[in-house]
């Protein structure tokens, strides 16, 4: 099986990730719950993970790095901190349901979409500039579209938000570990990310980087201030009620160490090169519509395509039968498909990680050539 679905979950991980998770199950207890050796060893692992993440994303203090169960969890905390009934919120045209559903579930929230054409970063910035004119209560923007790999100009959007004093939530689900991401430079209020994609951690892990005081989504035990019936006022305890996923965190720590050692810039270049190779190869095939940016910098290691007269799910299944793991459909992002004009058809999405190779892309293109010629 050639795995091309890293935008959902990276399957190939650094070998230390699984080893650390397995070791954690055997040897680590709960951080902050007891002074015995297994509890303290778990505390050290959790702290090391926060420090490693703070280093990768330039977060001033490890206390601002909060463990979540996935990016959706972090986004819900961030959204429910900043958005209230009656709020006006601006989002990009490429948001995932992890953003649009929490907004939809809140009564009386006015959501404005900063619509812009696919791969046009300048137009995206202008759309945000227009929507920010009357100072909304919050901006929520994905860094990279999970469907098309389109890189939103998040640094410029963040600068606009700072100028106008508008709080910003960044969904870094597709950029964390795949593109450089600087928490301090962006000045975002919250950045949410999963641990199991570009950070190469296990499923069930995520991080929320906090630039302001958040409202807890869950209340419960934290191993601190137990007499106080309010959640602690300080991070990370304020957001980490209940037992941690320490086996996941131990694996995530190794994923983060791998990224800090290898460097995100090199990974970004590798993934972009592979996806461009794939995009150019697919574009040469008859009956295929390939969503490849002209500008290399406007796309990451994610590529969508549609085959004429072929249902995307059927094509995805056919590819699966031939040994290629890709995801088809709407990718939980109907808004992105609506913006790009693919809501009716959906797309087949290929997404790479730093572990994919030129040879794998070559094999995939060979299989696609066969399918395009009716074999």
């Amino acid at each position, binding site marked *: 099986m050639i795995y091309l679905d890293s935008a959902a979950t990276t399957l190939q991980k650094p070998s230390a990730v699984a080893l650390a998770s397995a070791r954690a199950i055997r040897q680590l207890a709960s*951080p*902050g719950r*007891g*002074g015995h050796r297994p509890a*303290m060893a778990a*505390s*050290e692992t959790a*702290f090391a993970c*926060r*420090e490693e993440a703070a280093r990768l994303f330039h977060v001033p*203090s*490890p*206390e601002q790095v909060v463990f979540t169960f996935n990016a959706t969890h972090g986004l819900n905390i961030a959204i429910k901190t900043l958005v209230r009934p009656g709020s006006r919120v601006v989002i990009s045209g490429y948001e995932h349901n992890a953003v649009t559903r929490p907004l939809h579930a809140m009564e009386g929230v006015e959501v404005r979409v900063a619509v812009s054409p696919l791969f046009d970063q300048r137009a995206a910035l202008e759309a945000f500039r227009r929507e920010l004119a009357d100072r909304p209560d919050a901006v929520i923007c994905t860094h990279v579209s999970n469907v098309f790999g389109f890189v939103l100009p998040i640094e410029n959007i963040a600068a606009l938000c700072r100028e106008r004093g508008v709080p910003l939530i960044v969904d870094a689900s597709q950029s964390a570990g795949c593109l450089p991401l600087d928490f301090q430079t962006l000045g975002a209020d919250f950045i949410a990310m999963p641990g199991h994609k570009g950070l190469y951690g296990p499923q069930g892990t995520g991080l929320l980087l906090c630039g302001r005081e958040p409202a807890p989504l869950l209340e419960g035990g934290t*191993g*601190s*201030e*137990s*007499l*106080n019936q309010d959640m*602690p006022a*300080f*991070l*990370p*305890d304020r957001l980490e009620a209940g037992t941690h996923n320490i086996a996941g965190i131990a694996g995530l720590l190794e994923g983060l160490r791998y990224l800090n050692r290898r460097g995100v810039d090199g990974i970004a270049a590798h993934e972009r090169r592979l996806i461009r190779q794939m995009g150019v190869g697919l574009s040469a095939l008859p009956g295929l519509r390939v969503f490849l940016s002209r500008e290399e910098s406007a796309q990451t290691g994610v590529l969508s395509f549609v085959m004429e007269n072929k249902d995307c799910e059927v094509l995805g299944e056919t590819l699966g039968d031939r040994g290629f793991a890709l995801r088809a459909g709407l990718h939980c992002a109907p808004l992105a498909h609506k913006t790009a004009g693919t809501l009716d058809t959906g797309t087949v999405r290929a997404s790479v990680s730093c572990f994919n190779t030129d040879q794998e892309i070559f094999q995939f293109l060979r299989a696609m050539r066969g399918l395009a010629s009716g074999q």
Partner: protein
Amino acid sequence: MLYYLIICRSLTYAQRTAAALERAGITARILRSPKSIAGEGCSHSVKISQRSLPDALLVLQRAELSPKRIFITAGDGSYQEVEL
């Protein structure tokens, strides 16, 4: 042997405190705060030797890690708060 317990607001804060002290060459150990001095319930402390306190306070001030409270103890179950 006399030693000091630096009470911290959270485990992570205690870990930051201990890390800053260790980086400065001061031996620091994190432990659960004794219940009698834990304040609002469970908390964590950083244990340092008696002779390390002046240097430790300097290091923590530079690192902007202000201790919540500090207690001195001989390990016999009695704790006396130190004025900061």
